[in-house]
């Protein structure tokens, strides 16, 4: 049989394809049939948070930080409750990472503050002596791209039915609505409102001034995202 295949390239290629495609069919299809359902209390990202998430990806934060807490005592002691599948329902892409040069960030919003991040990203070693994390100084001068974040919200709402502007059940029985704007101008205004809440806890005067003038530096957006990780 093998000798015959080696003289018939088409059937050879077909056999190879069947051999390699088999595992994917068996492993991946069933998992997709059971769609990734959100855990109660999991909400989609707001415009500013999503913009921060894009900045997180732009700077490959996931190259050094995981967002996956494994079910071990040492990990739950350090980072909080182990990860549940439904918590990732709105993560496109997933950001589990594969290397922990720095600590896990899955629930960093539970134990770090806006003030801590503001100082830390500017000069990590001044907050955590011995840290080998680079300084992310450009986050303080670059402006966040709100329009692309809004475009992403629209895309996920239109193509994947992510529930913006609809009540989402919370753990305590109440419900919460995550707003998505109707126009680019409104999205910008909403993001600016969110940014104002963040900068109220920040010290850097130039950042405060920028937001007062209607601009959103990247640092504000990424802090909004960090704070949303719970």
């Amino acid at each position, binding site marked *: 049989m093998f000798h015959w295949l080696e003289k018939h390239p088409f059937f050879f*290629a077909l056999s190879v394809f069947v051999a390699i495609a088999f595992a994917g069919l068996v492993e991946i299809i069933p998992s997709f049939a059971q769609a990734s359902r959100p855990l109660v209390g999991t909400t989609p990202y707001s415009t500013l948070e999503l913009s921060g998430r894009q900045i997180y990806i732009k700077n490959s934060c996931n190259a050094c930080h995981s967002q996956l807490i494994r079910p071990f005592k040492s990990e739950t002691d350090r980072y909080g409750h182990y990860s549940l599948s439904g918590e990732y329902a709105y993560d496109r892409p997933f950001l589990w990472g594969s290397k922990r040069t720095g600590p896990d960030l899955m629930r960093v919003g539970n134990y770090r503050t806006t003030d801590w991040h503001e100082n830390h990203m500017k000069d990590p070693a001044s907050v955590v002596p*011995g840290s080998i994390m680079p300084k992310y100084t450009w986050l303080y001068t670059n402006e966040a791209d709100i329009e692309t974040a809004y475009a992403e919200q629209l895309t996920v709402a239109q193509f994947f039915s992510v529930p913006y502007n609809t009540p989402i059940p919370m753990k305590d029985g109440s419900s919460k609505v995550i707003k998505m704007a109707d126009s680019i101008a409104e999205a910008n205004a909403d993001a600016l409102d969110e940014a104002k809440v963040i900068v109220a806890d920040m010290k850097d005067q130039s950042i405060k001034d920028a937001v007062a003038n209607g601009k959103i530096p990247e640092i504000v957006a990424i802090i909004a995202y960090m704070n949303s990780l719970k």
Partner: protein
Amino acid sequence: MNKNGPLEYDYSVSKLFIMNALFVGAIGMLVGVIIAWQMAYPGLNTFLGDGLAEYTNFSRLRPLHTDSVIYGFVLSAVWATWYYVGQRVLKVSMAESKTLMLIGKLHFWIYFVSASLIVTSLLLGWTTSKEYAEFEWPIDLAITVIWLLWGASIAGLVGFRREKSLYISIWYYIATFLAIAMLHLFNNMEIPTILATSPAGETMVGAWWHSVSMYAGTNDALVQWWFGHNAVAFVFTTPIIAMIYYFLPKESGQAIYSYKLSLLSFWGLMFVYLWAGGHHLLYSTVPDWMQTMGSVFSIVLILPSWGSAINMLLTMKGEWQQVASSPLIKFMVLGSTFYMFSTLEGPIQAIKSVNAIAHFTDWIVGHVHDGVLGWVGFIVIAAIYHMSPRIFRREIYSRSLMNTQFWIQTLGVVLYFTSMWIAGITQGMMWRAHDEFGNLAYSFIDTVTVLHPYYTIRAVGGTLYLIGFLMFIYNIYKTTSARRVEEDELQNASPMGA
């Protein structure tokens, strides 16, 4: 063409890919060395000044390193050998068909232009974040075109072949083509955000290259690591096996040890490899049965992997003195040994209890590098050393330089993986250590500062490997410039001066 004479093979496409492999290889490895030193000395994140910090810091450079060595260096080398080996074992010359030649040239140039776009886009931070699939949709489309052109080249050469039976190397090239095609398409399913329209009717113009993954959360992770694991298989394993199945017998003058073993290894690898992706997701939120499958199949994977490696080593049976006398055989034999080593280490790391310590640590980085530096790098270097005298019709410039390169790079690899083993296991154990009261024994930063000496040793190892690679480039460059052109194509083992 003389109909009765021997075939005149045309290596012009192969030559282009060799040049590119050398060029991008040096850049990719240099970036690797830079980020290795940055981990030991974080001040180097701003080595071009604060103004350019955004483009020189670790996190922007890391994807550039991985993608340029995988898709710039290794894929170029794979294609350089395809346009060399393909013609020779199928007994067709590229010069026989203008169409085939055009496909080959287009293949190279579209690839070359896309590679430049990739470098620029990664530096600018245009990334999907998915490891080894960071490219945004416009580049994904370009990659699809490049891949189809390679497919056309395979179909063309195979279609016109005079040798009816496909040699083992061709099996592996075909498998590489099919598997990467499948993985690339499914892992990069994404929707460009410019397709969105706001309720007010505005079209989005923000970042036009931006896209959203079709899969969310756990599903996305599953597809990504099915891709990530198997991209390794089909870029770092199958085409490299294709190379060694051709170049080792050619160089040593020995026939492949066992046809049956190559059959078993090939079909075994095809069937088993794709299951093992789950070992990247142990203890994650992926269903348990899939994690277990990932672990089990990783262990089974030792069989076909060692099958190939043993087949290679036994091909040298009775001719072991060549290892001492030929630097080229040294590269291939040590490469095969590193392949055995790496394909044993991987399955060990895939055992759940070992993975609990190894995952997220530098041990994984060490594992990747003993595979790529020791196996992939060495076989690619050997392949280019073997092809160059025949493509350029000149003897290799210096044999002693080859030997020196071999030992410097070997030392580099050994320093690299030993330091990363120690770093990884140290960190893994410190993360989980509890004191007598059941509290965590170390804060996270303790587990970082302790790694400094190992990061330094690793950076030295990487630097040595890069130095060896630069010697390699110099040797090939001098071969093409300082050696005289031979009248006939050089035959037999690689001829070399002192």
